[in-house]
């Protein structure tokens, strides 16, 4: 197996790291999951995709990661450093936090010292220092998700894909992790593509919100979120925020009815 590049490729500040052009996915049975999707995510952008359940928004992510292949159109990823956070934390129950965070580097056959250093930094970034020896079953759902984030962070992701990562968590934990994620985004300056079914989460996290219709999934609306990063948590309680959430929700409802 060729060793993946350990050198960060030179990417210009606002280069497109992910590019979908007319992407369609038709399953062998004939079901069209996605249709005519055009979407670009650049460094420094955090794009959220909202849509009704079953609209293919997760499929979008699976195509971006290479887990599935588009049947029509073009998909380009301009970096090797792709992080992927699943709906579940998908931690290996027999490995402690340290072992789980080291996993990806281990699978890429990085040296032991590199692995350890990368894991230490990532565990630090998600505030889990001191929990290295804990097993997943000794952690709360929110902590498990943070381990999952740390695991992806060891990839030094330039493109970070999130598949409804906080959907199963309670509201308080979710808000806390939203802020953690924004902090990481500002610190690491990656390109983010975030799938969620929560409109308010999408608006709070993103620089752009994309609305998808019911199956076959098409993009039916795009909304730029104007507030600067790092984002003030208080923004959530302003009228402007409520108004934008309302607009996105309307577009979502029209997309379902369409």
């Amino acid at each position, binding site marked *: *197996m060729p060793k993946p590049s350990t050198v960060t490729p030179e990417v210009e500040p606002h280069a497109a790291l992910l590019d979908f052009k007319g992407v369609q996915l038709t399953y062998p049975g004939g079901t069209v999951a996605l249709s005519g999707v055009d979407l670009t995510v650049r460094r420094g952008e955090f794009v959220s995709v909202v849509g009704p359940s079953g609209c293919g928004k997760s499929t979008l992510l699976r195509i971006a*990661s*290479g*887990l599935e292949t588009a049947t029509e159109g073009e998909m380009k990823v301009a970096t090797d450093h*792709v992080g*992927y956070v*699943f*709906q*579940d934390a*998908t931690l*290996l*129950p*027999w490995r402690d936090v340290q072992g789980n965070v080291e*996993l*990806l580097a*281990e*699978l*890429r056959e990085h040296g032991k010292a590199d692995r350890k250093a990368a894991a230490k930094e990532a565990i630090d970034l998600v*505030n*889990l220092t*001191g*929990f290295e020896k*804990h*097993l*997943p*079953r*000794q*952690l*709360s759902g*929110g*902590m498990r998700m*943070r381990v999952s984030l740390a695991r992806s962070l060891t990839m030094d992701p330039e493109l970070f894909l999130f598949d409804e990562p906080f959907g199963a968590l309670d509201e308080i934990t979710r808000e806390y992790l939203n802020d953690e994620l924004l902090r990481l985004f500002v610190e690491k300056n990656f390109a983010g593509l975030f799938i969620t079914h929560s409109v308010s989460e999408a608006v709070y996290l993103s620089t752009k919100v994309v609305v998808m219709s019911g199956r076959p999934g098409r993009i039916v609306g795009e909304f730029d979120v104007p507030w600067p990063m790092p984002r003030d948590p208080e923004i959530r309680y302003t009228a402007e925020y409520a108004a934008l959430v309302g607009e996105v929700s309307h577009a979502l409802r029209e997309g379902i009815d369409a």
Partner: protein
Amino acid sequence: MSAPEPNAAASLRLPMRFGVKYWAPPLAVAVLIIGLWYFVSYIFLDPSRSYLLPPPHEVLAAYWDPAFGPDMFVALWNTARVALTGLLIAIALGVSWAITMNQATWVERSLYPYAVILQTIPILALVPLIGFWFGFDFTARVIVTILIALFPMVSNTLFGLKSVEKGHMELFALQHAGAWVMLRKLQLPAALPAMFTGMRISAGLAVVGAIVGDFFFQRGTPGVGALIAKFQARLNAEPLFASILLASVFGIVVFWFFGWLAKRVIGRWHGPI
């Protein structure tokens, strides 16, 4: 930002496994059984027929009887050698068989029916044939043991390998992990709990297999089974019961050993906290 909520320390503590509440109920049942045994030996049975169930202390005395004791422990050693050799081979063979089947659907489809056949044919019917081919000694006995103990190892390992979560498979696939890495770092560890279940079942069956071999192959190095048959034929009640007890205790010890091993190896992350 403050440290995360450490609800973890509590779950590190081991449960109270060795308290009175843990031991008392089975102990009470044991006392009850022994009491019932004495009742049957002394009160229920007519003294002329007491050989049908000699009282416990007379059975235990047989172990110290120079006429029977040494024979019994030599026989146990022979049975143990057969059972453990057969079990280890059955485990290795069963795990390899399951791993092979897990590589591709067509391989599984080709090989699984034979695992089922192994389970459904009356192996006792094959035992004379095995004697015919392999003689009546150690090898033949081990083969009988393997045939009896193999299936649970195959089916449980296969079940374990298949129980790997889809998300975990994708996690590895995203890093382009090869089949060997996937097996070593994901599928085998994930299958361990099921494999230990298989080992416990197979261990019990291996003891059965070794004793069954004895009944058929009276020649060669006799094990506990041969001894049981001999004492039965001679109406030696006390050593007969003592031999049966010995075989049972051996079976329990082997079963318990794999339970203990499972707890040592996977108890940290699997099963009750």
